[in-house]
């Protein structure tokens, strides 16, 4: 990968402008409750229409990691995480802000995010090539199993029951079968509506479920949750002592976050939680955790950003999204005309180098943005929810319209908004449904290719060492709730 040449392209004024704009919009979107990174990326996809692919890629990525930065701003200041990955930042970030150290908390979180992001970007350069080469050996059986494994791990890790996660997954898979079948041109589940012939647009579903569903869900509690007054932000900087305390946690968090992020279905939420508990165990004074320990904020912040960069590796190298947000990113790439996967590297080397370099620039810019403009940015949090929610609704509708220029999508938005509301109320995990929307068609094709290549024999899924390993991992994932339940029971028995 020619990084120097990549810098040349990444430093084009237009691309720098996109990095800055994406980072800024991402931060704002990430901060707002009701518009997480998934919906944020989805709503902003129309912005990339008419751009050249490299710029579009840069913009989408900067929105993505900008949203990760933004999510923790509101964690620290309001104790309301902008997205799940920022939950761990509440534990010590908010106590710090309450102690009047909001400025230091914001500063350390920005610095930790920068270092975490940088560690992961360096790791990205080293790991993406080998992984892409490895993925070249994958046949259709392996791909089908890998997709299944990624979705099932998300299901197992999501809150709520495994059974409901699998139901969500089947809903997503079912939606992905809507439209004309690629192999036989049979119309499936189109109900005679021409707009369904090419399948439902996953972006519409994502916006419906995440943005509209979230707003509807918030309506339930709109009068109960009182407007929280943001804590005072002091000087946004840290002193030597604070840096000394958080240095090691940042590097550990960054490394851990990167590794977890690369794993399929790892994701930033788990990475930040894991690094929080790791720091707590390593700490000489664990009793300070939860009461405003600066290490307890630094580590998950670094992990969170490192994981979101790490998550781009399986996405770009293998075409496997590990989280709902990277799934949306993958959909966005496909719309731009880039198919993530090993071939992307053979065909578009220069573009990937440009993306990597833009990540360096973007991370650096976001720190500046977060250190200098943070006082201005947090003003966004003061918008009363009565005005914010209608605006999010309008934005969702207009964003969705620009995809297909059809108001049929509007009805779908409303439909999936209601679906999202009920899934949240009934505690059905949503991520296992989003992932199949993007990879479902590929999954089916790979499934059919495997089975028909072997004359309708399921044995084709056990032909290579890789696929056998994947089958074992899938079975283990499926059984994991049973196993943990069993261990829990045994512990109780031994205790009593």
């Amino acid at each position, binding site marked *: 990968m020619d990084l120097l040449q990549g810098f040349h392209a990444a430093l084009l004024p237009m691309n720098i402008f996109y990095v800055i704009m994406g980072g800024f919009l991402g931060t704002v979107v990430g901060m707002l409750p009701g518009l997480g990174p998934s919906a944020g990326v989805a709503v902003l996809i129309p912005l990339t229409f008419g751009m050249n692919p490299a710029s579009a890629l840069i913009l989408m990525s900067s929105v993505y990691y900008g949203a990760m930065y933004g999510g923790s701003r509101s964690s620290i200041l309001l104790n309301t995480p902008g997205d799940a990955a920022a939950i761990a930042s509440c534990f010590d970030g908010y106590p710090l802000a309450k102690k009047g150290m909001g400025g230091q908390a914001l500063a350390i979180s920005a610095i930790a995010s920068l270092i975490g992001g940088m560690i992961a970007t360096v790791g990205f350069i080293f790991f993406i090539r080998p992984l892409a080469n490895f993925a070249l050996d994958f046949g259709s059986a392996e791909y089908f199993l890998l997709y299944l494994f990624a979705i099932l791990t998300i299901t197992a890790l999501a809150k709520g029951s495994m059974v409901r996660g699998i139901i969500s997954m*089947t809903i997503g898979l079912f939606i992905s079968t809507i439209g004309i079948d690629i192999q036989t041109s049979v119309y499936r589940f189109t109900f005679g509506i021409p707009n369904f012939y090419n399948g439902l647009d996953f972006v519409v579903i994502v916006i419906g479920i995440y943005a509209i569903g979230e707003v509807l869900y918030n309506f339930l509690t709109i009068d109960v949750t009182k407007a929280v007054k943001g804590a005072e932000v002091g000087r946004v900087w840290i002193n030597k002592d604070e840096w000394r305390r958080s240095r090691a946690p940042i590097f550990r968090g960054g490394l851990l976050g990167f590794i977890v992020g690369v794993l399929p279905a790892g994701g930033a939420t788990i990475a930040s939680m894991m690094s929080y508990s790791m720091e707590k165990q390593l700490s000489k004074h664990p009793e300070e955790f939860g009461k405003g320990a600066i290490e307890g904020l630094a580590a998950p912040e670094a992990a969170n950003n490192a994981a979101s960069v790490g998550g781009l590796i399986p996405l770009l190298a293998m075409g496997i999204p590990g989280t709902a947000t990277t799934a949306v990113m993958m959909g966005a790439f496909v719309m731009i005309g880039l198919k993530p996967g090993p071939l992307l590297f053979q065909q578009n080397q220069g573009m990937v180098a440009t993306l990597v370099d833009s990540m360096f620039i973007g991370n650096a810019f976001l720190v500046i943005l977060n250190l200098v403009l943070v006082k201005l940015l947090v003003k966004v949090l003061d918008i009363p929810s009565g005005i914010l929610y209608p605006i999010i609704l309008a934005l969702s509708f207009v964003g969705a319209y620009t995809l297909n220029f059809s108001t049929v999508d509007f009805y779908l938005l409303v439909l999936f908004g209601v679906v999202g509301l009920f899934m949240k109320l009934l505690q059905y995990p949503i991520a296992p449904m989003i992932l199949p929307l993007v990879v479902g068609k590929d999954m089916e094709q790979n499934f059919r290719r495997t089975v028909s290549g072997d004359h309708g024999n399921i044995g084709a899924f056990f032909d290579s060492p890789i696929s056998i390993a994947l089958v074992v991992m899938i079975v283990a994932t499926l059984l994991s709730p049973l196993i943990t339940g069993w261990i829990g029971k045994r512990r109780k028995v031994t205790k009593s």
Partner: protein
Amino acid sequence: MLGLCIVVGSLLLPKALFGDPDGPKYFPLLVGAVMAVMSLVDFGMEWKKRRENQGLSARLKAGRAPRLLIGSILISLVYSFIFEKAGFLVSTILFLGAELFLVNGRRKWLANILVAVLFTLALWYAFARLLGINLP
């Protein structure tokens, strides 16, 4: 309460059979079957602890929730209907205004109208002018 997903699961099965040659129907059939089985399992598990779930309808009926939910859905449907007929500017101002009056309350009418008009104009400018996307 969870009968809903049973219905979805079972509705799916007959429909999944409906593909013409053999190829396109296996996968949906498999998906439908897994969904139906899992729905049954889920239903069984829910049935055992059904008492815990009675809070749900209470939450849907609490305070302003029913008015906001039904109101927003209706306004959205009307918006979907008039969007192409009335054009972007008119319909979006109406939509945003209606939503704002519903959620933000009638007392803040001035802020509501200002936000509705200005935000719609800003959106229109961003999409139609800066991005060159045609809006009706």
